[in-house]
């Protein structure tokens, strides 16, 4: 019995050794993925899109994307892809703070497409570098607001300032709103600006070619060049690009200019609840369409559509309307 055992069966020691070896092999297979899961290499450049009017929805998304990027060790650098005329002051400030914190952690490069003005400029100012294309538009550092007017006495509110203050108080508030923005830009880029504060506060916009001369931008370059510069700065070597879209589709809410101010419209077919006035904005007004322009399109739609049912027409109708609304 004991003579044939050694030739056919393993000793208990051997059995343990085999099992341990098998476990080690399986472990060796799993270990890299486990290791990678807990210690991802920084080999990704995240591209965060900041496009359309600056509003709460956009700020929500940008804040959350940048927070995610800061917590994600696989992201080594960030490029902001900007195309915005600005918008709401608070939303601009929120993005500014988010970019500022991210810029503390890693390289952040702003890449301006056609425009990054006013609130858009505010948001990208803490970036390490601002890339523009030769005909991009940047600048417009200031507040857009109508002149405060005296109003007739409101009867009923519990205090004199409850239903609107006097014009001087409103002027002072507007000045404070403007200075908040201008001071922040001076804090971020006064070393780059080739002009004094008073000149910056004129809120002029500049084309990319001029912006790299006067310090409103740092480099002429495309999005890809900005991505490459960010990767190079962080010594990423081989890297992947992760594009993160923000804001809602179709840029809703979109901004519309009226004769008295700017309004945000929160629906394509707006009702009363979908239109909100924006008394004070960090926006580059010429980039915001006037309501008359939009009404003109709507009139064409009504004329050519005839029946009410065509209001919610097919994509074909949409095209016809945009191209002049002929026929159908």
């Amino acid at each position: 019995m004991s003579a044939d055992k050694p030739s056919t069966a393993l000793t208990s020691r051997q059995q343990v050794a085999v099992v341990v070896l098998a476990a080690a092999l399986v472990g060796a297979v799993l270990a890299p993925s486990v290791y990678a899961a807990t210690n991802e290499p920084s080999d990704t450049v995240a591209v965060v899109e900041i496009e359309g009017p600056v509003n709460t929805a956009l700020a929500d998304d940008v804040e959350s994307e940048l927070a995610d990027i800061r917590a994600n060790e696989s992201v080594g650098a960030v490029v902001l892809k900007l195309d915005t005329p600005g918008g709401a002051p608070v939303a601009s400030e929120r993005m500014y703070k988010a970019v500022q914190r991210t810029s503390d952690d890693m390289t952040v490069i702003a890449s301006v497409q056609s425009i990054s003005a006013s609130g858009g400029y505010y948001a990208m100012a803490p970036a390490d570098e601002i890339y523009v294309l030769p005909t991009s538009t940047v600048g417009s550092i200031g507040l857009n607001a109508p002149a405060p007017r005296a109003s007739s006495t409101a009867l009923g509110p519990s205090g004199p300032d409850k239903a609107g203050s006097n014009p001087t108080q409103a002027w002072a508030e507007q000045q404070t709103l403007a200075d908040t923005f201008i001071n922040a830009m001076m804090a971020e880029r006064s070393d780059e600006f080739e002009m004094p504060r008073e000149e910056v506060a004129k809120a002029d916009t500049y084309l990319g070619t001029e912006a790299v001369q006067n310090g409103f931008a740092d480099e002429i370059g495309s999005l890809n060049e900005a991505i490459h510069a960010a990767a190079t700065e962080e010594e990423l070597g081989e890297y992947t690009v992760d594009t993160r879209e923000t804001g809602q589709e179709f840029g809703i809410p979109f901004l519309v200019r009226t004769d008295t101010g700017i309004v945000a419209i929160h629906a394509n077919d707006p009702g009363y609840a979908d239109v909100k006035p924006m008394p004070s904005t960090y926006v580059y007004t010429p980039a915001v369409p006037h309501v008359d322009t939009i009404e003109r399109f709507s009139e064409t739609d009504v004329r050519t559509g005839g029946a009410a049912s065509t209001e919610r027409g097919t994509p074909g109708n949409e095209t016809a309307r945009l191209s002049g609304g002929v026929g159908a």
Partner: protein
Amino acid sequence: MTRVAPLAAAFVVTLAAVTGGAAIAGYVTADGAAPAPAIQNDHYQNPDLIANDTPGQATVEMDASAGSQTVLVDPGVEPATARPVLPFSLIGLGGGGVADRDIRPLANALIENGHEVGVYVPDPDQQRRPVRPGAEETTQLGERLAEADAFVTFRTDYEPDELDAIESFVESGGHVVLATEPDAAYSQPGAASLDATLDVTTESGYVYNMEENDLNYQRVYAEATGDASLTEGVDRAVFPSATPVGTPAGGADVLRPIEGSELSTTRAPTDAPLLVRNDEVVMIGDSDFLSPDNARRADNDALIGNLADFLVTNDRTPPGDGGSTGPTQPGPGQPPTNGTAG
């Protein structure tokens, strides 16, 4: 078979040791991902950032001891645009022009000192009448000016016969204050004719100051350049939207924008006057400075008082100035014909 359990245990322990070790190694060598602390932005916490919103006080006082004078005010209601619409729009609500409220500080000072203030609002029906051939070439404005000693206008688009009436009014010693706006050249034709009649000039564009201003770059400060009755007690006045004005006469009664002011059209520094006096005429490149809100800014109240003095200190004696006719009522309607008339 009884050895299966220890063998399985050995397998699990080894696997756990290897993968656990990998996990621990990963965590140990990973960079910390703790939330970054809040960044202090000193530029948001600068106390100077908050603009002073105290409205200020206004005390409009007059020094002139002239007897009761009649001051006619043309707030700038345009009959051409007002004609087709309801008469309610003629009282200065909507459309261009200056509302009654905006001239209150000046009007109050005049009234408190025993003078009479009339507001000229053209009657759209009567406006057509002088055009008829053979009729007496008297305009509504001419009729009102004939009874007045001084004239304050915020309008520039007068008809030729109205300009004649204004010219003869000035020639007879009547004092005129013309307050214009930077956009008058854009929205109203005929400003040059009035300027020529009164011998004053206006430049295009507005004056602004990025360095020192009253809560907005367009609300510029202006300083007196010499000692003169119009600028007495006025260290600085605020003009909320000012255009440079001039007069060939020169003189000391001028207010010029403070250093750092620039002209919108040239973007070049300017010290061109914002208020000038040409004998009987005072030209001001702004019409908002005498509103109640702006009267409280800087020394605007003193300037308004001086303007009131200027208006009532004139050499004119209206032809039919026999006795008091009572304050002239604004509006196109006829005064009630009960008793005292005649």
